[in-house]
């Protein structure tokens, strides 16, 4: 059974139909790349998965459980959505770290707030907080940021900020981690360090959906590739297949921009 099933998602803003009948599925431990020109609806798709937008139509299932069904209002209550969001993580293009907290505090904040809701929190407070801190430190060291734990975001480079943001998302153990152009806001010399940690995550079989304009990376890291255009999935398949032998005219055209550049 796939870990994620998306059936027939549609989303309209005003008069623009941004997503049209999106269907996709993802197996546990696999990485999916989504490519496509700007405005094709990639961000909107990730925002729907993270419940930042509400699809007009369609169903989202994780591990067989229906998280969202546009026809079933009982799946859409505010309180239920907060819990369901935790199935997904989202790494934003422009990081959105909390500026008043250190790197370590950024990673720990949401975990701490959730832990306080546990019934045994009062009794085991110290132990739980120590656990959270140890885990956050471990994540930062995996991101190569051990010596940056006590720095504030404005003291970090863009690449370092994005790695903190990845650690912050991982701290909640999402089933599926989504990346929205994680290197697009970075200077070219800083993209490498971020792509490297995402590659490492792929090696550890983290289930991921990665929207990116880094074509070589999209091809190497993914088990499956989707090409989107004007809110439609035009073509999808094995990376080697889609990148080497695209079938659709629009895919060929899109990829040709990158081959020349």
């Amino acid at each position, binding site marked *: 059974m796939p870990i994620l099933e998306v059936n027939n998602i549609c989303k309209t803003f005003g008069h623009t139909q941004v997503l049209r009948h999106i269907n996709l599925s993802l197996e546990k431990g696999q990485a999916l790349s989504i490519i496509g020109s700007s405005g094709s609806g990639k961000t909107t798709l990730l925002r729907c998965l*993270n*419940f*930042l937008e509400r699809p007009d139509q369609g169903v989202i299932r994780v591990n067989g459980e229906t998280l969202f069904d546009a026809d079933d209002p009982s799946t859409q209550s505010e309180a239920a959505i*907060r*819990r369901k*969001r*935790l199935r*997904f*993580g*989202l790494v*934003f293009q*422009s990081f*959105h*770290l*909390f*500026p*008043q907290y250190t790197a370590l505090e950024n990673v720990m*904040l*949401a975990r701490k*707030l*959730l832990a306080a809701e546990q019934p045994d929190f009062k009794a085991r407070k110290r132990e739980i907080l120590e656990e959270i801190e140890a885990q956050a430190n471990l994540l930062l060291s995996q991101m190569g940021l051990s010596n940056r734990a006590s720095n*504030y*975001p*404005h003291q970090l480079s863009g690449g370092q900020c994005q790695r903190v943001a990845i650690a*912050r*998302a991982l701290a*909640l153990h999402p089933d599926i981690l989504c990346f929205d152009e994680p290197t697009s806001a970075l200077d070219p010399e800083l993209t490498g360090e971020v792509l490297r940690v995402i590659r490492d995550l792929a090696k550890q079989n983290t289930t991921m959906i990665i929207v990116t304009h880094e074509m070589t990376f999209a091809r190497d890291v993914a088990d499956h590739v989707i090409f989107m255009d004007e809110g439609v999935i035009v073509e999808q398949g094995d990376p080697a297949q889609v990148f080497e032998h695209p079938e659709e005219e629009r895919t060929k055209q899109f990829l040709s921009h990158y081959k020349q550049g």
Partner: protein
Amino acid sequence: MKLILEQMPIVVNALNIGFLQTLKLFIVTLVGAFPLGLIIAFGSMSRFKPLSYVTKLVVWVVRGTPLMIQLLIIYYFPGLILNNPIWGGGETGRFLAASTAFIFNYACYFSEIYRGGIQSVPVGQQEAGLVLGMKKSQIFFRVTLLQMIKRIVPPMSNEIITLVKDTSLSRIIALQEVIWAGQSFMKGSHGISGAIWPLFFTAVYYLIFNGILTLLLGRLEKKLDYFR
């Protein structure tokens, strides 16, 4: 000069009492206008259009007319026009009327500052919180609030310093604040009459008090300098 030195203890004593009233009005205004301003800010940002329009209209009127006129209207209107002198006579009544006018006026100014502060925190902050499973209230108190405070401290400081000086407007309804106390020595009071220097001397009170405030607010601003 010798005369002034002789009059000094008497004058300072009277001015102190007046300044206490100034201080009281200042503090009461802040205590009332800080929360009321926030409520007005939320009103003007409300998605319920009629509420937001009415709030914005009220703010526009209050900010567009002199505080002195508002003071006069609030003090005299109930008694003269409605035949219902709710403020009563005496110093207490004048203080209540002045407080009401000042709180309302300053709440309208503060509301605009709050609004700017809230809107200047990028939506991405809230979305990052949501995606991390935080509740709306947790996002407000743990993420947005401090960033908002950091942004409103400088404009708030300006308003607070202005308020210190504006309290003197309450002289128009004969509230016995420091200017009133200084002026009383012109007509005659405590055995001193025809002395104009006490009126000018009140400026020293404002200067010293504003100096202290500027220092404190500057320190707060520095404290929030640790992030951007």
